[in-house]
């Protein structure tokens, strides 16, 4: 219950331009911090003469990225598509199953423990089987990403749907609402903030799934680069891939968070 959130009638025009400027300023500040961090890193490595094997200088890493950008760009795009595919499939399936479980309690009680058990299985133990089933395709990685994402989404969808205020439900029922009307007008919107919490988590998990999936005989992708870097002891390449992964990770997370802000604009009270 927000106490003092104010209803500002129209913002003054200066506020509008400020609102456009503010994210720009924030981005600039973030960039400045990033540059400062890299500078400090560089200085640290040089000052303490840290062996590049343990920590290469950022300039060396950026040089590697600059000289052979192709594998990193391709890896970024490939891993992104796998992540996206798995994420979307996992999200849709997770929400669907959440709705199903919400409606069919017996089914939920029957299947839910299995779902929980399934989540305790390390994917990597499964990887070989997934390649066996799906082949050396994008689908195999998306399947692993999917496997990691759907469960939290299901759980939170269910939690969200069940967190509906029974008084609110009673109110709508008193207006004569049908079950479908209850779902679309009350239950689903109520669950949305919770669903987005899971989706944010799932965005990271999907990336993990894609990267791990690529450890099973893939040709392109950030996971491939990591593995290759590890077995050739190419620490610079590992770091370059880590930075690209960070970019992908934050970017994808920011995307989901932006979607959350757009869809859950009312500021969920938890």
């Amino acid at each position, binding site marked *: 219950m927000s106490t003092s959130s104010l209803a500002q009638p129209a913002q003054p025009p200066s506020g509008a331009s400020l609102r456009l400027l503010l994210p720009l300023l924030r981005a600039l500040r973030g960039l400045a911090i990033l540059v400062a961090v890299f500078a400090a890193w560089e200085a640290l490595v040089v000052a303490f003469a840290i062996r590049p094997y343990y920590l290469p200088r950022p300039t060396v890493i950026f040089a590697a990225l600059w000289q052979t950008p192709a594998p990193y760009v391709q890896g970024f795009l490939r891993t992104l598509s796998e992540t996206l595919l798995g994420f979307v499939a996992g999200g849709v399936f997770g929400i669907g199953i959440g709705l199903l479980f919400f409606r069919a309690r017996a089914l939920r009680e029957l299947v839910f423990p299995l779902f929980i058990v399934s989540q305790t299985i390390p994917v990597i133990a499964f*990887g070989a089987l997934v*390649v*066996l089933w799906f082949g050396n395709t994008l689908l195999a990685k998306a399947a692993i990403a999917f496997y990691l994402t759907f469960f939290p989404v299901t759980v939170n969808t269910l939690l969200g749907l069940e967190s509906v205020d029974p008084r609110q439900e009673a109110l709508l029922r008193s207006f004569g609402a049908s079950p479908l009307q209850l779902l679309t007008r009350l239950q689903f919107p109520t669950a949305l903030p919770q669903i987005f919490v899971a989706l944010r988590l799932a965005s990271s998990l999907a990336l993990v799934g894609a990267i791990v999936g690529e450890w099973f005989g*893939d*040709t392109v992708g950030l996971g491939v680069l990591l593995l290759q870097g590890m*077995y*050739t002891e190419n620490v610079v*390449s590992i770091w370059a891939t880590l930075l690209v992964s960070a970019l992908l990770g934050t970017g994808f997370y920011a995307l989901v968070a932006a979607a959350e802000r757009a869809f859950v604009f009312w500021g969920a009270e938890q």
Partner: protein
Amino acid sequence: APARAADLTKATLRLKWLPQTQFAGFYVAVAKGYYKDEGIDLTINPGGPNLLAENLVATGADTFGLSGGLDSVFAARDKGMPVVCIGISHQMTPFVFVARADGPVKTIQDFKGKTVTTWFTGANHVLNAILAKNGIDPALVTIQPQQVSVTPFIDGQVDVITATRYNEYYTIKTRMGEEKLRTFVAEDSGITFPRDTLIVSETTAKEKPELVKAFLRASIKGWKDAFNDPKGAVDTVMAIAPTLDRAHQEFQLAEAKKLMVAGKVPEKGLFWIDMDSVKITQDLFLNAKVISKPVDLGATFNTSFLEAIPLADRKP
């Protein structure tokens, strides 16, 4: 005449490891269209630490496999996997055991009481065989699984390390200098451990012999090109995996060539399956209880596909 795209048969080759010049010939054959010429649309799928080519070939997920070696082929047959070996790439043991030249390990006998690291994925059998041949009780040697990194050896935490001639040995050599190293070779103890086996499933062998032959023809052509133009071959592989180190890959290709043209290959051609060394290896595995019983060598090894190719074409 080059076959038209529509007539191409789709097929895949599963490698035992990540793309590198160890597999250059296959990549060259793809790049030069030799498979297409044979009517095959071949995709090369890399391997990795948690994949097993035998498994993927046996289930039909991949058509061809360049698998671990005789060890994995025997193990697969022992577990009832219907794989058939149609060729052997590395005719001699690709591993060496490396100690410091100035270190305490001067002979195999010095392994006693020392820390030796090796991979438990085949190389351990070679180590055990060497120890046995030299009358050393393996229990007297501290054998440990080997790190991803060779740094523990370079830092002196490990006395003897296992190295592939084409990978780890290069890394150690460039970091320490070759003169600082002492190597122990399996062949010196009378042991040969052929690796990098080409496999297909029994079904493929039976139903698509022409495909198998065509694949071997194109692959050998690719390898011969790779040997003749190592620079071009390295370029081809580096295009696939650009983060690799060129100097290393050039060295690797040269080493791979040495391993591939060893043994009977000068007379019998590339990928030749020398049944004598196969039998010796089987005995080694039986003794080590890696396999529970002798496998049906006739069903496991099939030289007919190689023999269908004129010997002149097969010779390196």
